[in-house]
């Protein structure tokens, strides 16, 4: 369910730390802060969101101030600052998608899940939100699901039904 308990204690696994090390090696000496965004993606992929405890740990690892992590995590829309459903359906709501029915698809997803945008379903599996242009306008309407950001294109109510069923069975 919701992983609130991780607010208290975050200990990165050694596998995750060696992933961090590999990321840091991509930049010149003394420029390890460049690793911040890739590292936050790795952390979010493991925990589902970025708790302040996790962000503090990242700051410690990169030897920077916690505020330097917070200001980045709050700037970029891909980072979740509170727990989400296991699957976050992110539906593009920008112009070209709306020309071919994205708004209706988003309403349909809300009805189908029985929650409002940003809320999590009672089983903890799903939440959804509108996001801005995903650079897939030719395959509209589209949605994506992290952490691998798999794309679902040319959405219809039927394909949304199928997608939700498939994810439930996963």
């Amino acid at each position, binding site marked *: 369910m919701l992983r609130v308990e991780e607010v208290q204690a975050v200990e990165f696994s050694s596998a995750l730390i060696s992933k961090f090390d590999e990321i840091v090696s*991509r930049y010149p000496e003394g420029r390890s802060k460049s690793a911040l965004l890739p590292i936050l*993606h790795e952390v979010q992929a493991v925990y589902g969101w970025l708790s302040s405890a996790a962000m503090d740990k990242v700051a410690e690892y990169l030897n920077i101030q916690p505020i330097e992590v917070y200001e980045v995590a709050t700037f970029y829309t*891909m980072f979740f600052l509170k727990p989400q459903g296991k699957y976050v359906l992110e539906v593009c709501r920008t112009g070209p998608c709306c020309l071919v029915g994205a708004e209706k698809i988003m309403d349909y997803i809300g009805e189908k899940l029985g929650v409002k945008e940003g809320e999590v379903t009672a089983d903890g599996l799903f939440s959804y939100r509108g996001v801005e242009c995903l650079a897939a306008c030719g395959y509209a309407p589209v949605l994506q699901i992290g952490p691998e950001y798999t794309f679902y294109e040319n959405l219809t109510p039927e394909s949304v039904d199928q997608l939700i069923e498939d994810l439930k069975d996963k």
Partner: protein
Amino acid sequence: MGRKLLLEHINVPGINTFQVYKEKGGYRAVEKALKTMSSDDVVEEVKKSGLRGRGGAGFPTGMKWSFLAKPEGVPRYLVCNADESEPGTFKDRYLMTHIPHALIEGMIVGSYALGANTSYIYVRGEMMPQIRILEKAIAEAKAAGYLGKNILGSGYDLEIYVQPGGGAYICGEETALLESLEGKRGNPRIKPPFPAIAGLYGCPTVVNNVESIAATVPIVNEGGEEYAKIGIGRSTGTKLISASGNINKPGVYEIELGLSVEDFIYSDEYCGGIANGKRLKAVVAGGSSVPILPANLILNLANGDKRLMSYESLSEGGFATGTMLGSGGFVVLDEDQCIVRNTWNFSRFYHHESCGQCSPCREGTGWMEKVLHRIEYGHGKMSDIDLLVDVSKKIEGNTICPLGDAAAWPVASAIRHFRDEFEWHVKEPKLALERNYGLARYADPIEIAEEA
């Protein structure tokens, strides 16, 4: 059929792998550049080609390369801008997904030309699948000796890394991208200094769009002069156009610059006409930032001649009657679309994506969104229309980066060309909630002023 330089082998099975890409003539440009050309020779060919930046600004790529400062003992960087997020644009995603080695090969050629030994491809974070594809392509190229130390025995070393963004349109602006690559918020920098002098980590840096970098491959292979023979006037070569909206065949098309807009929309080779038998109402020709044009002005110039898909023809007439090629994000609106709603949607986008650094943009985009929202939802006043024009003028040109202009132009142009539709929303608020304004006179032949 127009010539294809980037997408020629797009349908070859396995073209996303190093082996098939190489069998189809891939990596010849790296061989040619590293073995037979000096780095200045490569820059010279790109200059001769007339290639203009494919990300939207249209600045000559060779010129940009030649501006790079080369102080002794300071590293230089090539950074690829793959933060594709301009609404209506999805060509870079397409290229990276299907022919990733075209970008990697271009990165090697470009890095060699600029003398960079470490290069980064900054990909928008949502394109995680493309990030994986590029990482695999880099590993394949490295295993084959095209990356790493002493490439092909030339003595030239290069590493390429892929950097994910975090979901921020503003990072498509080159200095915001560099800030982000340094692990910071994507706030654009004040220029000068330009990245060519002080870019990534304060070092001389060139930032180029995915398509621009990939286009250097055929330029090196065939020579800049050959490349410049394709296209029309100063719009040389081919361009990837992302076509979306109410058309029969949305998708990415490689065109020779100079094709008529009419052929692009209606021929079966490209968009295949308007979907569901509807009529064309309007087009946003170069991504959401560029001025929207009604059907009659996108198909024809103000003098009645056919408008062409080229930098010059699309901008013919300035903003009074023209638009821009921009990133090539070609969004088509049919007669059932509401211009007010579409403009509101784009305004919301820019408000959402403003980094908040400059108050005209931070506040102005929010104002425009709210005023457009109330017009769309039946609470508008006639004075709101001029208020929007006023706000857009106060944003335009008054911000550190071009996001302010990008937010202002769609609003100003929508009112310029579709003012009666905005007025109708104000006068008939109930009706406007029930139905759309329709095609009105937007597709009528243009009245051509008689020459004196």
